[in-house]
């Protein structure tokens, strides 16, 4: 038995040698895998990059498998996704893994970036590694956006419309850029094939190439040492210090550090699979028929914050903002290692860096959260779907009740909530009469103002009177109605001469 084992072992060894004689990869690969790593860098903080790479491979594999069935044609794409979801064996699982893999990849890439930033790993001599990393982030987001287009549904269609409308604002060449993006004058067949080429050839090709360079540089320059407060990076001494660090108490990356990467990558893959099985695939939502307008298009999670920002920008600032902000943000990220290539690495000595990360993270989180429930959007069905709370109708005069009907019929609820239901675009009306006087309400309703359209032409005098009568009853906890202080003054005769006559 033992001799049989020995014989087959030697057979394997022979085959291996036959190949390596010709490939010559064993030595360089082993050396690369075992390159010395500073002992403290074998940390759970250093696992995000490898996990992102593993997710990229997952996306490539599942993407290729989906391409076996998917039909990149505007007329058929939506149907082929339904076919994948419902008819192809395990098609839905593949779509779900690919979709969730994409979300996880963005999250992990961002975590990787934050970790690298906080640990000062972008500093000399790893500046270029960071710069390529910035492009990897942009390409990852590019994959997410083009991937959303592949899911050729209503959201994809109108998302493309938003993209085209943004580009149309570029001065002079806006129109040409729109046609370049869409591959023609409209969102249609050529648009989808264009984005298909981007999603499966151009962006992933570039992504894989740059990941190769990124990893090559990590191997060449070594894994960032664990930062210590007071240990200053200087171009003159860093390489020698790092060399000492790895020579003296370095450990081979494989296996001493890599086991953590392996465990984390497996955990992430498991999480992707769990989400995929539990939550299922994303969409597709309604079919991409632009004549079906009963839709509230929304971008995927990663872009919700942009969606929210676009809702809040004042109209005249918007165009400059959407073109200048990305240049500043991306330019800032690219220049970071060039301007801050030396100095302290430890986050305790870099308060500005900590502040920046926290502010950016909180901002993104707030805008993303707003994007999930879009308080700026009218709720288009609220007027016909949500009744007025009964309490607001008890002990009311016929005119006031008539006003409640006007409020409902004129679709005020689409933007104004009552009893907690309705749109959030305008203020809730539950206690409006304690905040505005009758005159103010009349003026606001008829002439609009702030964010409210004027309803002067949509309301008859009788309707206005009834509506205002009802609104005047809306005083929560029976607080006193708002009063116009100047009027009581005028009545008491306190305002004598000049003011009252200035008209």
């Amino acid at each position, binding site marked *: 038995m033992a001799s049989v084992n020995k014989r087959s072992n030697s057979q394997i060894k022979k085959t291996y040698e036959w190949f390596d004689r010709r490939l010559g990869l064993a030595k360089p690969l082993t050396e690369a895998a075992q390159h010395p790593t500073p002992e403290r860098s074998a940390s759970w903080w250093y696992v995000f990059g490898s996990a992102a790479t593993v997710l990229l491979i997952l996306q490539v594999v599942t993407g290729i498998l989906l391409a076996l069935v998917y039909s990149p044609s505007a007329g058929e794409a939506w149907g082929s996704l339904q076919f994948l979801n419902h008819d192809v064996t395990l098609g839905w699982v593949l779509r779900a893994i690919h979709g969730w893999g994409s979300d996880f990849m963005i999250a992990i890439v961002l975590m990787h970036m934050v970790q690298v930033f906080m640990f000062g790993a972008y500093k000399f001599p790893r500046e270029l590694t960071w710069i390529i990393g910035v492009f990897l982030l942009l390409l990852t987001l590019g994959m997410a956006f083009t991937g959303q287009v592949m899911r050729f549904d209503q959201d994809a269609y109108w998302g493309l419309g938003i993209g085209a409308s943004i580009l149309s604002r570029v001065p002079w060449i806006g129109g040409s850029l729109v046609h370049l993006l869409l591959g023609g004058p409209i969102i249609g067949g050529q648009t989808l094939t264009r984005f298909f080429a981007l999603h499966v050839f151009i962006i992933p090709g570039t992504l894989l190439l740059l990941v190769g360079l990124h990893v090559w540089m990590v191997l060449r320059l070594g894994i960032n040492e664990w930062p210590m407060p007071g240990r200053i990076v200087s171009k003159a001494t860093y390489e020698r210090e790092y060399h000492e660090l790895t020579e003296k108490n370095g450990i081979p990356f494989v296996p001493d550090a890599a086991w953590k990467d392996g465990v984390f990558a497996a955990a992430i893959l498991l999480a992707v699979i769990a989400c995929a099985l539990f939550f299922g695939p994303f969409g597709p939502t309604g*079919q991409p028929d*632009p004549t079906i307008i009963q839709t509230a298009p929304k971008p995927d999670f990663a872009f919700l914050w942009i969606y929210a920002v676009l809702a809040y920008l004042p109209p005249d600032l918007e165009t400059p903002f959407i073109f200048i902000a990305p240049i500043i943000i991306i330019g800032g990220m690219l220049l970071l290692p060039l301007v801050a290539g030396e100095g302290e690495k430890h986050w305790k000595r870099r308060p500005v860096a900590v502040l920046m990360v926290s502010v950016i993270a909180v901002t993104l989180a707030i805008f993303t959260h707003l994007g999930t429930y879009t308080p700026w959007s009218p709720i288009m069905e609220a007027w016909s779907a949500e009744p007025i709370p009964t309490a607001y109708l008890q002990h009311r005069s016929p005119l006031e009740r008539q006003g409640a009907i006007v409020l409902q019929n004129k679709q005020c609820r689409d933007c104004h909530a009552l009893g907690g239901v309705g749109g959030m675009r305008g203020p809730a009306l539950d206690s409006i009469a304690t905040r505005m006087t009758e*005159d103010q309400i009349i003026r606001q309703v008829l002439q609009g103002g702030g964010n409210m359209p004027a309803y002067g032409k949509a309301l008859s005098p009788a309707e206005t009177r009834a509506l205002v009568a009802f609104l005047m009853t809306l005083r929560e906890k029976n607080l006193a109605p708002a009063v116009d202080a100047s009027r009581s003054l005028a009545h008491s005769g306190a305002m004598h001469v000049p003011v009252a006559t200035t008209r």
Partner: protein
Amino acid sequence: MTPPHEPSAPTQPTTPLTHANTAAREALHSRRAFLFKLSLYLNGVVGAVLAVPLVGYVLGPAFKKTSSYNSWVSLGPISDFPEGQTRLADFRNPVTTVSDGETGKVACWVRRIEGEKFQVFAINCAHLGCPVRWFEQSRLFLCPCHGGAYYEDGSRASGPPERGLFEYQYKIVGSQLMIEAGAMPTLANEACAKKPRPLVNIESQQPAAPTQQANDAERSSAWPA
């Protein structure tokens, strides 16, 4: 294009290194280096020639004039559109191709003011292109994306849009309502050609005047807007 001295190059016999043939090898090397450079230039030229169709193919859509896509399409008989109402209409885009599927369809809002006076609005919000919806009762177009609102004449009411809805050019041929459509309406392609704004725009200049409550308005001197 082929270098003239090509055949003489490989006929050098291989002899052991001596001083004499070191010089010869140097000369040969410099000649080969020159030829290599030449080959680079050659490929540069060929590359430039090749780039013309490649780049032209990719940029093709950008060079076509937007207006060249437009043509007149019918929205149906005008009797489909009652006076004083705003109705959704759809049509097959004149520029559509077979591969467009249902994305070749387009919707638009037709407002028949009176008689032969119409306004035909693009479905795309002037902000970022989402489909606006008409609300008959409140006489507003509302956008689901960022809450843009427009009055019934298409002028901006509130929200992020910086202008009113895009309007198609229209004409009436026989009993048919025709509009000039094609490229997707965006800020770079405002659907309508430069035409004198219809009278409805004059209305919207003034804030809707209160038609009633004259007493109220008198009583309460102007409130801060």
